[in-house]
Every structure is written in structure tokens, then in C-alpha cells.
């Protein structure tokens, strides 16, 4: 009896020891056939918001990116912004200016003042963007993976740089859900063939290898077969990819009293209840993680609006504008 108890504690001790994981710095490029520079028009109209659905109206058309912003897109932005002196590098951190948020002096409220803020931590485990020879480069094979370890400040700066913006929570939810009350962007069922979430672990481990930051290329789940692994199309009713799973997406709202920044969509580290279209996550705007990225929205110009005037339908009549 005593021996067994002793052996149990030894076993527990051994399990308790921790080891550093191996993060892939290069991988095989997976071609998905999806162009991340594509924008989708979301027409004005009502939709259902929340777990208990409430009808909401967005009375203007807007566009959202077809996919998350990729490492390649973000590195391009960093190079352009760096050359213009908009961002700077300080001790492995990419910093840039943010104007600050209004302060309400509420209980537990953290004041967000104007000043230089962290955009992206270079050399942070999981980051696939590196600064070498005065240029931002992407690890081999990760060009079309979503950018991660980017703060809300970094996501917001990217959007502003190109005169886009981060979508509001409502805009995001409408783009993910369409006009019905579905639970996931693609319908009401979830499986490891349709998105990258916690339960995809076993399947993706075999395809992507043992890297811990297990992102999949944007638009990976599009019905294509990769090395015998057949995916299902995970587009939302308006045609956006990965609105559930892969990595969380920062949205733009700044709510009074708290200043948390919200995220939507869930990620590869989360179980299915975080993938629901109504699931929310939040953190401080300077927080970054291997499971957080973003995509942008933009207002439609008057001319484009008129061109899209007849279109109010979903999925088959999606307006696709390649930039």
C-alpha cells in the first residue's frame, strides 16, 4: 500500500515536470486557392444578434475582408509603415501611436492614455514575422496563415493605415450569421472537417505537425482536399471564411467604463461553445496571444453602393471585390 502511494507521487512528480515546446519557424506552404485580398459586401438590413436572438438593423452596406489578415499582409503593412516612420522598434516590440480613450473614472476602469503602444511583439514565441536587414519578413510557409500575437492597437493601426477600420461587434455578427439564427457561420453542426478548433487537434496534428501555435492558412476549410484530408466549406451566409475558429478576431468597439476590447469567432484553442457566433472574448487593448488575429471592415464608397443597390441576398449573390 505504502509503495503504491509512493509510486503514485513519483509518477505525479514526473508528469508535473514541464518542457519547452518546439515552435515551427518554417512549414510547407499550403495553397488554399483563396485570395486574402478579397472583400465581401454585407448589404444593409436586419439580422439576429445574440444567443437569444434579437432582431437588429444595420442600415448601411459595408464590406469585410474575406479572411483574417495574414502574416504576409501584416508584414507588408509593417514595411510600409516603417518606411514612413509611423512605427518604431523598441526592444523586440513594434510600437506605434494611439490617441487614447475617453476615461469615465469607473470602478476597475483602466485608463488608456495617448502614447506609443505595443502593436506586435517580435521574437515572441508563435510570431512568424521577423525583422531582419531592416525588413519585416515572414517565416517560410506561414505567409497565408493569420497574423497572431497582434494587439488591438496593432490591428487598429493596420486598419487605419489603409483607411479601413475594425468591424463593430454587430457588423461582425451580421457578417458571420447572415439572416437566420444559426449557431455557427456555416450552420448548426461543427466537426474537425469544417473548422480549426480544439477538437480538430488530432486531425491537424497529423497534417500540420507538432507545432503548438496550430493556425491553419486562411480559407483552409473550403471543400478542398489536402493530402487526403477532405475539408468542408465553412463560409458564412455572406461568403466569409473562418468566421468561427482558427484565431479570435479583434473588433473595433470601445465601450465606456471598461475599455476592454472584444474578440469574436473563437480559435484553435477553444471548444465549440466559443465558436458560436454570439460568443465573446475580451482583453486589454495591449494584450496579444497566439490565438488572436483580426480582419477589417470598410465603408462602401457612394459609387460602389449604387452598383450594389439591387443586391440584398446572401451566399450565392455575394459581392466579391478583389482589391
Amino acid at each position, binding site marked *: *500500500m505504502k509503495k503504491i*502511494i509512493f509510486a*503514485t507521487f513519483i509518477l*505525479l512528480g514526473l*508528469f*508535473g*515536470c*514541464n*518542457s*519547452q*515546446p518546439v*515552435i515551427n519557424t518554417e512549414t510547407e506552404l499550403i495553397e488554399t486557392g483563396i485570395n486574402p485580398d478579397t472583400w465581401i459586401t454585407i448589404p444593409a438590413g436586419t439580422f439576429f444578434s445574440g*444567443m*437569444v*436572438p434579437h432582431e437588429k438593423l444595420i442600415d448601411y452596406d459595408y464590406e469585410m475582408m474575406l479572411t483574417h489578415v495574414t502574416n504576409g499582409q501584416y508584414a507588408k503593412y509593417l514595411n510600409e509603415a516603417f518606411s514612413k516612420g509611423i512605427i518604431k522598434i523598441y526592444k523586440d516590440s513594434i510600437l506605434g501611436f494611439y490617441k487614447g480613450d475617453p476615461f469615465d473614472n*469607473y*470602478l*476597475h476602469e*483602466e485608463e488608456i492614455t495617448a502614447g506609443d503602444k505595443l502593436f506586435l511583439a517580435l521574437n515572441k*514565441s*508563435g510570431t512568424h514575422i521577423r525583422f531582419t536587414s531592416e525588413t519585416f519578413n515572414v517565416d517560410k510557409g506561414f505567409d497565408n496563415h493569420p497574423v497572431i500575437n497582434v494587439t488591438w492597437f496593432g490591428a487598429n493601426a493596420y486598419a487605419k493605415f489603409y483607411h479601413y477600420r475594425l468591424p463593430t461587434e454587430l457588423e461582425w455578427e451580421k457578417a458571420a450569421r447572415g439572416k437566420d*439564427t444559426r*449557431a*455557427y457561420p456555416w450552420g*448548426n453542426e461543427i466537426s*474537425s472537417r469544417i473548422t480549426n478548433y*480544439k*477538437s480538430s*487537434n*488530432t486531425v491537424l496534428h497529423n497534417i500540420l505537425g507538432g507545432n*503548438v*501555435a496550430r493556425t491553419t492558412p486562411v480559407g483552409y476549410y473550403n471543400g478542398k482536399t489536402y493530402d487526403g484530408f477532405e475539408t468542408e466549406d465553412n463560409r458564412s451566409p455572406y461568403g466569409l471564411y473562418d468566421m468561427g475558429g482558427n484565431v479570435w478576431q479583434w473588433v473595433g468597439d470601445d*465601450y465606456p*467604463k*471598461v475599455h*476592454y476590447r472584444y*474578440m469574436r469567432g473563437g480559435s484553435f484553442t*477553444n*471548444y*465549440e*461553445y*466559443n465558436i*458560436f457566433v454570439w460568443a*465573446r*472574448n*475580451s*482583453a*486589454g487593448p495591449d*494584450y496579444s*496571444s*497566439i490565438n*488572436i488575429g483580426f480582419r477589417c471592415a470598410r465603408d462602401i464608397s457612394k459609387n460602389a453602393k449604387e452598383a450594389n443597390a439591387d443586391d440584398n441576398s446572401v451566399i450565392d449573390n455575394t459581392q466579391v471585390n478583389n482589391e
Partner: protein
Amino acid sequence: MNRFNYLFTSTKGLILVAISLVSLITGIFGTLSGPMVEWGVRDLTVGILGMDLNPAERAGRIIMLYHTIAMSIVAIEVYMITSIIPMKKYEQRNINAIITFGYIIAMIAGLGFAYWGHNFSLHGIFLVGQSLVFFAGLMLAVALNPWKKIYYVTNNEYAHTKKGVDMERMAFFVMAVAMLISAGFGAVTGSFWSNGHETFLAEDLIRDPNKTALQKAIVGHLHIMLTLIAVAITLIVGRWMNFKGAFHKIAMPTMIFGTLVISGGVWSVVWTHMAHTFIYIGSVFVMLAALLLVIFSWKKLINDRIAERGLSNPTFFQKFAALFHDPIKFGPFWQMVFMNFTVSGVGIFMAIKLDQIFRVWPAREERITLTGHWHILAALIATIIIMYFVDISGIKGKTRKWFGWLLIIGSDTAFASMTIFSMKRLIVENETAQQGLMDKVMLLADFGLGIILVMMLMLLLWRLFDLFKKKGIWTEESVNQELTVEKTSNPVLNIERDTFNTEGGEK
């Protein structure tokens, strides 16, 4: 029919039924989440049982599951209370009958409503069941009335007022009344469901600065109900150990005061931010009372064993060995100590470091820590009940030791692992490196929980097979129906025997 009478009229049989049902529910519904999904077990369960799991109704399903399990646990505690606290036989019988009928129909109809399509007639029956449980609670409060002179304490070893009012009975009474009011807190809000109030999980509101009064009431309700269940089990195991003497005299008023303050604090959460201050103050008193019980019990275990071995001048190591001699009696109080590391400690730490650490982490991780620490509290309470049940079942010798130690090691490994899991950022800063730690603690948690589940299965199978025996343990328990404890007062001495519940199964 004898078996039916045993299972549904005797205290020990009723406890066996409730533990079996909770185990069954935990076993079945535990397959619907976590790694079970990836392993395909959930699909199997859903397919075989024909469940209807609408994603939008997940929160509602979980709420219903919590309620059915919680009501069964409350029923177990009520069975124990009506057995160990002197009251009239008919009071015990009526309370037990009503709460049994109530929790079982609430369980069947509630789960039927939540997991097999929203049939609102089932929801209505669920409410009837809940109402019966509440009604049984009212009857219990009446039966526990500490001001009845026949229950006055004459033995000076037990806490009592100058007049003789039994302070332990008062503690049970205050707990019962507080629980009834707290249940009302939830019921009032529940009555607004779909009529202005929407289903939500408390953990989803943590960062919302604008909570409605109904939302605050629900958050308060779930916290205080679990706290009072913990207070009840503390008082129950105190009687099991025949808690008495100086510590008893300090602990009982402390527990009463703590229960009142903590309950009042939670109820005031709807109106004031000061609520948390009251809750902290009340918690200190409740925890102090529990600490006194732990010290008393361990001292008693040591002394009893030393006396049993006939050691007149025991060494430190002999005392140490004596403490660990019976894990089934050592365990409940160890779990109370362990609770401080995995529940109270985490809660206090979170409160202190709220702005510096926890509110900086993503909400989903703060949520895991919050839900984790009260799931652990609930599970620790369950292990204490199981240990008492093992004692009631008369398990002795090596089986008792194996069961006790494996239950303690299994549960503590699992709960410590989950605590580390939820606070992994404090241990490993590098986010990608956390995965390795998480994999290991998850494995340890599964290992610990696996041990508990296997042992519970063995225990219940043993009790099931016993029921098929002509002269099994159940026949003995049919005769000796009540829990064997020393009571704080003994009204049987003054009043006709057969109108009172006493040990030994008369009637």
C-alpha cells in the same frame, strides 16, 4: 416491496438512491463535453439516447443540469440532517418523502425538457418538483426550530445559550432558512424567464459593467446556494465526529454569525457594491468555524487511535500515523483544508489581483478560473458526502483504506491539476510553452477523475448486487435505518419513544 421500502423510506436507502442518481447523471452527461467530443463519445451518447442538443440552448441545458444535481445533493443533506438532528418521526418521514418526490420528478422532467426537446409540460413538472423541494425545506426549518424546549441542551459539552437553546441546532436552522430565502432569490428571477429575463451563464457577465438586478440576483443565488450546501455538510460531518467541547462552543456561534452575514451580503449584491465586504467578513467567520472543526476532528482521530492501540506515551510519529489511520474519517477534514488551496485561496487571490492580473487576461481564461474554482468546491463537497456514505455502508479494513486514500489522492490530484490549469499564466509565462503544462495537468486531472469514477462504479455496483441478495447489507440497513451519531440533545428521555426519531430503527 421490502427493497422498495428500504430504498425510499429509510435514511440510508434514500441516500443510496440519491447518490446513485447523481452518479448516473454525472456519468451520462459528463460525456457531452470536453475531450469526449473529440473522442466521439458525445455523438454516441446523443445517438443512443436520442438527445436534441440545440447549440443555442446550451446555457439553458447546463443550468438545468446544475439544478438537478444540486437538488439531489440538497436532498442527501436533508436526509442526513433529519437523521442526526432530533425531531419527531412524522416530521422526518414527511420531509424525506416530499423532498424525494420533488427532486426526482424535477430531475426527470428537468433533464427531459433540457436535453430532449423543449416540451413545456416537462418544464412545468420540473417547477412542481422544485416547489416540492422548497416546501420540504420549509418543513425542515419548522422541524429544526431551536426554540422548542424539548430540544434544549442539558449536556454542557455542547454549545448552548444560558436558557439551553442548542446552538448547533440553531446553526442548522439558520442555514436552512438562509437557503430558503436564497432559493427564493433564484426563483423570483426564474419566474421572469422568457418574460424579460433571458437565459445566461453567470461567467459570461464577468466583464459587463451594466448588470441588471435580475442578473445580479442570479449570480448571488448560485454562489450562496453552494456556500450554504458547504455550510450544511460542515455541520453534518461535525455531528458525525461528535463535535463538542470548547471549540464547539466557539464554532457554533461563529458559524451562525458567518452564515447570516455571508447570506445577507449576497442578498445585498443587487443593491450595493458593499456586498462583497459583507461576504468577505461572513466568509472569515464560516471558515474559522470550519477550522475549529478540523482541529477538533484531527485531535479526536489521533486520541481515539492512540487509545485503541493502548499507547500511554505516544511519540510524534505514532500520533502522525494515528491521524492517517482511517482515511475515511481523516478525508473530509483534509478536503476542507485542501479547499483553501483550490477554492478559497484562488477566490481571495483573484479578488486581490483582479486589476493587476485577472482583468488583464482574456475573459475566456478568467472565466475558466472562476468556473473552475466553484466546480472544484462542489466536487470536494461530493467527496465528503461519499466518504460519509462509505462509513454508513460499513466498509471496513483494507477496502476502507484503499477507497479512502484513492478518493483523496484521485480527487486532490484532479483538483490541484485543474487549479494549475486555470492559473497557468502565473506558472509559465511563455504562452506556447503553456501547452506542454496544460497537456500534463489535463492528463493528471483525467487520471484523478478516472480513479474516482472507477471507485464510484465499483461502490455502486457492489451496492446494486447487494440489493439482489436475500440477506444483504440492505436488510441490516432496513433495521438500523438511522445514522449513528451522538446527538446534542436527547428528547427521547423526556417524551414517548415512538413519537421520536432515534437510532436503532424503532418503528
